[in-house]
């Protein structure tokens, strides 16, 4: 945070983009100020999942040939936490500032709707990466985990956190109270992540549920991300890339349209 807080980056930003950069920086500080809740807590939760599931299932499940279940589980847990935290960052910040009224401080400024989107999205991506890769770096102390295609890992982490960060912006703008926000988290994000192949391969499911899983965008994010580690996946990483990118572009269009129209922000 000291680099961000200091003069080094501030001096490099042109005045036209200083507003966007400031909003991005403010969003980073916001979650960093409560890092136990926003970073440490999800890391601990994921490591508990790893401990329990791997202990119970290690000798019973082998998803990919030559890949222990513990190793199979790690990319799924990393991606699940990365996605959930990218969503939580933009959505909770927006809904909180709307309810407390402090959103007015940003709405009164010359920051454009596109710059607003970029700042919130970038902060969501950073938090997603921070949580996701913290889990990875802790987990590899306990599990031998290879990386076959690092670029795919980065691409799916980036697209996934951007997709969920964008979805968080939409949910944050739409929600008028914390209860509505919690409904998004508990009835949309949580089921979609748990049913996306974090803990299993969809090939272990009956044909009907395999088909259903293919309508779940989280499945493509996690499967593509996992391909980067093992060079094996349920479907082609290129297909996953196209699906995830399409969802991202669709949601980004919707979020920008909402921001441009001032939906629930400027009457």
């Amino acid at each position: 945070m000291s680099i961000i807080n200091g003069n080094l980056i501030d001096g490099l930003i042109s005045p036209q983009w200083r507003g966007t950069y400031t909003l991005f920086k403010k969003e980073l500080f916001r979650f960093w100020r409560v890092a136990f809740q926003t970073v440490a807590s999800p890391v601990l939760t994921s490591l508990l999942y790893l401990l329990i599931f791997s202990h119970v299932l290690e000798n019973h499940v082998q998803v990919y040939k030559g890949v222990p279940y513990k190793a199979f589980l790690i990319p799924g847990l990393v991606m699940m936490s990365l996605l959930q935290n990218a969503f939580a960052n933009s959505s909770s910040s927006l809904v909180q500032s709307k309810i407390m009224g402090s959103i007015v401080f940003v709405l009164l400024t010359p920051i454009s709707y596109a710059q607003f989107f970029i700042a919130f999205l970038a902060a969501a991506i950073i938090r997603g990466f921070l949580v996701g890769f913290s889990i990875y770096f802790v987990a590899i102390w306990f599990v031998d985990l290879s990386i076959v295609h690092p670029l795919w890992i980065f691409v799916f982490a980036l697209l996934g956190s951007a997709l969920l960060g964008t979805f968080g912006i939409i949910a944050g703008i739409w929600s008028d109270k914390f209860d509505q926000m919690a409904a998004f988290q508990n009835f949309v994000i949580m089921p979609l992540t748990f049913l996306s192949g974090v803990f299993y391969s969809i090939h272990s499911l009956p044909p009907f549920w395999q088909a259903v899983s293919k309508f779940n965008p989280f499945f493509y994010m996690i499967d593509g991300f996992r391909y980067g580690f093992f060079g094996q996946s349920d479907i082609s990483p290129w297909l996953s890339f196209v699906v995830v990118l399409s969802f991202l572009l669709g949601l980004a269009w919707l979020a920008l349209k909402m921001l441009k129209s001032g939906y629930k922000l400027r009457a």
Partner: protein
Amino acid sequence: MDKKLTPAVKIEKIHKSFGQLHALNGIDLTIEQGEFFGLLGPNGAGKSTLINILAGLLKPTQGKVAIMGHDVVDSYQAARMSLGVVPQELVFDPFFNVREMLRFQAGYFGRGRENDAWVDEVIENLGLTDKAHTNMRKLSGGMKRRALIAQALVHKPPVIVLDEPTAGVDVELRQMLWAFIKKLNNDGHTIILTTHYLEEAETLCERVAMMKQGEIVALDTTANLLSKLPGKNLRLTLGQANLPSTLLPMLKNGENGIFTLALTELNQIEYALSELRKANVNVQDMQLIEADLEDVFMSLVGEQAPQQNQQAGAL
């Protein structure tokens, strides 16, 4: 004042509807650069709606608004650079201290570290120096109000809108605040004030607009508005005695033994005193008072003055 300057605020035929409710009905108003302007009116008059349109927080149903020549819709970035708004509600971001919050706010307007000296000046002038490193959550209501005012000023806007800035604040802050705002006005900043304290508007504002039900019912210099009411008030302190019934038609208000009579002519004083003598009422004190903005307000708006009727709309 140089009339050739671009107006600080130009409002042309602004209408705003919320469903069936017409909050603003064709407001036309020009505020020149350097003015100290008052916007007065009872609850629901449309003051906050108008300010929210200036600030870009509401979109007008019809009409145009320009800040320093920049349309608030088409050239919103330039318009917002020229405007600082102090919201009426005590809103704050609970994650940051006062100085951090002010630096962030300046940054939103493209200001970097070169602006820090001005941020420090604002902090000092608003008496926030001791609280600069205190989290916003831990500030008292008065201190939060100071911080809100500071936030509106961090980018040195030429036009400053203060929406009820002294609501619920103590005398010390009120005096400190007005001294600072008057200094800003003397430095050339245009000030637009909405307040429930009509004495403040009377003392500070060169020109005043009075609003009622989404329309401007009076727009003139404060001096001209006051001169439109030629009458004066006679304030009598009578102690325990009652006002003679013959004087009741002149009674404007009376409580705790102090009665204010509305006079249309000065020779009514003699009449009032003779009626009091006839009723054997002893006058403990007597004052002749000029009509104030509250009288003008009541005669034009026809309602109770706003300080008796708080809870205006929020920004």
